[in-house]
């Protein structure tokens, strides 16, 4: 395996770079709660090889870091962790599946439910996280209601990106062996 380290490193890095480049090239619609981040379609890659879990995590980190429109530190830390969790779950659920369409379907479901649930939680956390009694009311502004409000606003854009991504990744899987 030793002689393949360089290949493993560059492939991971390049997929991270693709994610960041697509996010940054199609910028105006990519951030905030109502987002259409086309690069999210790349999440399907994690169904093919575990290398892409790290690649997408790094990609999200770079995109959020370089973009002038991200939420700052919350996106750097929790956006990255959220992506790693949801892509790891996708990888784990699809590791025995051989049919490409089913792989993509599972990843769509995982990302739009678990992934977006984490993202919505990220927003709630970002805006409500505080040491005990940091807010004068002592209450925390209906956390569950807030979570639903964010969740409902992030899902449509994400689903659209995942559908476009599904077509791209499916076509790509015919040309390149993604699992290799």
């Amino acid at each position, binding site marked *: 395996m030793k002689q393949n380290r360089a290949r493993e490193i560059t492939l991971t890095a390049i997929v991270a770079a693709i994610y960041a480049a697509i996010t940054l090239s199609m910028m105006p619609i990519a951030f905030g709660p109502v987002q259409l981040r086309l690069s999210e379609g790349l999440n399907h890659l994690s169904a093919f090889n575990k290398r892409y879990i790290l690649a997408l995590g790094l990609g999200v980190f770079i995109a959020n870091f370089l973009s002038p429109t991200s939420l700052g530190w919350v996106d750097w830390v929790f956006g990255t962790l959220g992506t790693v969790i949801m892509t790891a779950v996708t990888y784990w659920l699809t590791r025995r599946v051989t049919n490409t369409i089913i792989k993509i379907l599972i990843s769509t479901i995982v990302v739009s439910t678990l992934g977006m649930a984490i993202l919505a939680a990220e927003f709630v956390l970002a805006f409500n996280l505080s040491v005990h009694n*940091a807010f004068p009311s002592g209450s925390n502004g209906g956390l569950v209601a807030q979570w639903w409000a964010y969740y409902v606003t992030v899902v449509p854009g994400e689903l659209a990106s995942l559908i476009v991504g599904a077509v791209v990744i499916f076509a790509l899987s015919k040309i390149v062996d993604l699992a290799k």
Partner: protein
Amino acid sequence: MGNIMIGRFVPGKSVVHQLDPRTKIIGTFVFILLMLWANTWSTYLVAAIFVWFTILLTQQPLKMYIDGLKPIFWLLAFTIVLQIFFTGGTPVLLHFGFIKVTLPGVINALFVMFRFVLIILMSTIMTLTTPPTSIANALESLLKPLKSLKVPVAEMALMLSIALRFVPLLMDETQKIMNAQKSRGMSFSTGGPVKRAKAIVPLLIPLFVGALQRALDLANAMEVRGFKDAEHRTKYRILKYKKQDYQAFASLLLFSIIFFSVLYLI
């Protein structure tokens, strides 16, 4: 390569630019932690003065910071509305149907807004004054303790720097492919969402295939030059804390002391 600007880094010679990237990461992190305690108007005032002072030190036009806040305007507005409607409590200021606007709700919303604006300004200070590659180096150095947990820190930092190097290149390539497709009559900016989504497919596939080829070429180039593993690489730039870093840490400590005195004494 085109001269696409990526990231927000603006070269400069200010004190903040010259700080070690690790100092800036730690400083931002400590500031954010402190903000979790902020629950009175005076604490926000102290924090705002600290941020204002740091902004002045960076010698960048204020406009750049305001531009940094604009994109999150809608998210912030949405959040403020959520805070106002869902906080509850008494006294009730306004009442329509099932929606109640209460005083604690309004105060919560204002605090959330101040907190976020300050945190984002602080993050902007860091990204405006630190090149992304230094951040990658600094993260590697700061995350070193994780090595004992078998986390491949050096390898991840190497991936991060390679990826950062490739981002502008791939953005350039995306533009080239777009132009190539446009010259064949493709339009990326007309039609409904379905048509636009379809237009993306012939853009992404050549981008991907080209990028994967580059990755394999780079891997070969690295191996030919004797790359063994990320652990034993030597560095061109070695991070070292200097006098101004100790001064920065001292002012951070001073700020924390003032912050907590204001919080608990006033």
